[in-house]
């Protein structure tokens, strides 16, 4: 395997969980809901996916368990914010805090155990092509799924009636309600989709990125995914680009250290967080770019008229 191949492969591995979580959150936010619980849903997906895979011996079951865990977490959020109309910011924070604690509790006895690795889908013939084979065709299910989801979300949001309804609900929930759309129902569904994607992102961390469970292993990726959605101005294409940029930054530290340059490893480890802040500054400062695509109702509770 050449060095370039290795770099590309690690970038893909580092980017996939960001892409999965961000694309899910993008749909949630397009429907007008800000779910700050991505980190909590992701870490729960990671621990549940890991344990399910370990106990069943099947990585696929692990992936499914991660998805279910993400959805379950998101439904707590949905019930509170949509039915009980609690603050979305506070409830999302609560989801993250609880997810971090609960995953630590559940996963404690599994820490450090060797897990089950999600295997690459070997495509006969194609995966063995030199260079192109491993780079394009040597990945696991979730890598392809993340790319397919990006295309799929882009298609659904901008080319289908379902997407039109989601964007409408996020753009003006009163109008959507007046036209007879079930605002709360659409939002429940989009929150669940976001939860599923975050759960998958978590499962990717504990089954593919590393095949073990480490406490707090999401390491802020959920928050970076949230920042990515802002950075991408709510457009799936840009989420894809952003996720791969951030993924590249994430692994850049490893390679710089490998080159023997004397930079404290802690500085390199802080790089993804610093780059996230820089990205937010660049994008948020420009009001015209952000305002056009920002779902106008984001974060606002919707109370249907009595």
């Amino acid at each position, binding site marked *: 395997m050449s060095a370039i191949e290795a770099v590309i492969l690690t970038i893909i591995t580092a980017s996939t969980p960001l892409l999965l979580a961000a694309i899910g959150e993008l749909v949630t936010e397009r429907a007008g809901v800000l779910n700050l619980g991505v980190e909590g849903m992701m870490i729960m997906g990671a621990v549940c996916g890991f344990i399910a895979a370990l106990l069943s011996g099947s990585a696929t079951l692990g992936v499914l368990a991660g998805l279910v865990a993400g959805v379950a977490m998101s439904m707590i959020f949905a019930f509170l914010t949509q039915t009980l109309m609690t603050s979305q910011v506070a409830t999302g924070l609560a989801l993250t805090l609880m997810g971090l604690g609960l995953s630590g509790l559940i996963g404690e006895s599994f820490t450090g155990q060797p897990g089950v690795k999600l295997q690459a889908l070997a495509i006969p013939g194609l995966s063995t092509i030199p260079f192109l084979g491993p780079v394009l065709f040597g990945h696991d299910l979730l890598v392809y799924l993340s790319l397919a989801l990006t295309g799929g979300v882009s298609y659904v949001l901008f080319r289908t*009636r379902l997407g*039109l*309804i989601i*964007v*409408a609900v996020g*753009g*003006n929930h*009163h*109008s*959507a*309600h*007046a*036209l*007879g*759309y079930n605002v709360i129902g659409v939002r429940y569904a989009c929150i669940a989709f976001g939860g599923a994607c975050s759960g998958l992102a978590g499962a990717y961390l504990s089954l593919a990125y590393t095949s073990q469970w480490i406490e707090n292993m999401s390491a802020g990726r959920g928050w970076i995914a949230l920042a990515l959605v802002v950075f991408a101005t709510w457009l799936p294409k840009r989420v894809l680009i952003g996720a791969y940029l951030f993924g590249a930054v994430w692994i850049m530290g490893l390679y710089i250290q490998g080159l023997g340059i004397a930079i404290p490893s802690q500085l390199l480890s802080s790089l993804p967080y610093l780059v996230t802040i820089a990205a937010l500054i660049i994008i948020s400062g420009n*009001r*015209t770019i952000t*305002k*056009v*695509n920002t779902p*106008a109702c984001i974060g606002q509770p919707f109370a249907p*008229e*009595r």
Partner: protein
Amino acid sequence: MSGNGSSGFLLEARNITKTFGDLRANDDVTLALKPGEIHALLGENGAGKSTLVKIIYGSLQPTEGQLLWKGKPVSIANPAAARALGIGMVFQHFSLFDSLTVLQNVALALPPKSNMAELSQRIESVSADYGLPLQPDALVADLSVGERQRIEIVRCLLQEPQLLTMDEPTAVLTPQEADRLFVTLRRLAEEGCAILYISHRLEEVRRLCDDATILRQGKMVARVDPKQETASSLANLMVGSEVGAVKAETRDRSGTAMLELRGLSLPTDDPFGVALKGIDLSIESGEIVAIAGVAGNGQAELFDAISGEALCPSADMVQLAAHACGGESITARRRRNAAFVPEERIGHGAISSFALSENVILTHHAVGSGLVRRGLINRTAAEDMNKRITETFDVRKGKPDPNAHSLSGGNLQKFVVGREIARDPDILVINQPTWGVDAGAARLIRQALIDMARRGAAVLVISQDLDEIFEVADRIAVISRGELSPAYPAAEMTPERIGLLMAGAHEHTATSMAPGA
């Protein structure tokens, strides 16, 4: 029951009652419409018109009573069911999506199986056919209020409705646009479509409608032929008593300019905002100048620039009592004894979750009202001030110091206006003084404005309501796309002339005529 079909009614709402907690928004209301009829639904704010309409459109379910469609009892579970029956609705507050195109907005209101390319063509043909030109690809955010209303109407027409409900459709139109709308509505009625027309503009109801049902405090009080009534007899039916006219007398004008705008220009960084362009205006003490205009033509931006919520690039652009203060904060301008009443009561003029006494502090904390001393708030003084304001302005409330959101729109507006007048300001700027308030409160507020001017204050009223403008103003200017016409004496102005100015006819006549003209 089957005999009802022969009565020829398209829609009957029988003995409709709708309660919200203790409130009876509709109380045993009956309404009947025939095909091809333009039927007015009249009533004050809060009389229950919107509730009834929402029940007919399936947005609300009645507590008691029955709906009959072509003589058969129906239950309209949601707006989609209403549309399936053939009921269309044009809301007063448009149900449009700013970030979507005209085509997407229309598609959202139609059944799922529509082909977008085909729909685009139908929008163009129907809108051209009815004189409501629209471009399917235009973004709603970029359109004027009149154009937005066209989307609502075209969206209904595409469903070939048998009943079209319109809620206050002319509130946002210039008189000329309103006339064109009436032509469209009459044509629809001739084609057999029934129209339920909700308005509080009595003259236009008399011109347009064949029949009228009048609601008062949730009850149906009369069914009349509006063409046989006068505007004042209709008004009496709506309000239930004589509404006195405001007393306007000629006032002494001092000749000193209290509020002056000199070449006020303010760009906007909001992609959906309006830039102000070279606005000149001078108001003397003792006079009321009104600025007419269709919503969204820069009124909010102008208000912010005068109040100091938005600062001007140059200090001379805004002068209060001959002080150049375009760069001063709203607090500094209040200290020059200017007072401001914004359009939005809730969230701008007052905070819904705060007690009235706390809302008093909002505009009194820095102007020597004695409510704040050494950084600490004197709650008793604020409560006393609130008591004085609410007594003087007849603000009706359940408790001595309730939260703002428990007040009705009219009472809250009386409070917000009263709070400023209590300071006895030399300059008052007020945006939409009686928007959405009942007739009694509107009269009280307009009278208070006139009385203030009589005491020597300079008053600037920004309003969409031409009746109100003619009632209070000494001079009238018109704002259109961020530009202001000269202020003409009220006696020289007519609704038609204001309408032309609203469409921007005072300048660049050739290029900026009314959209679609």
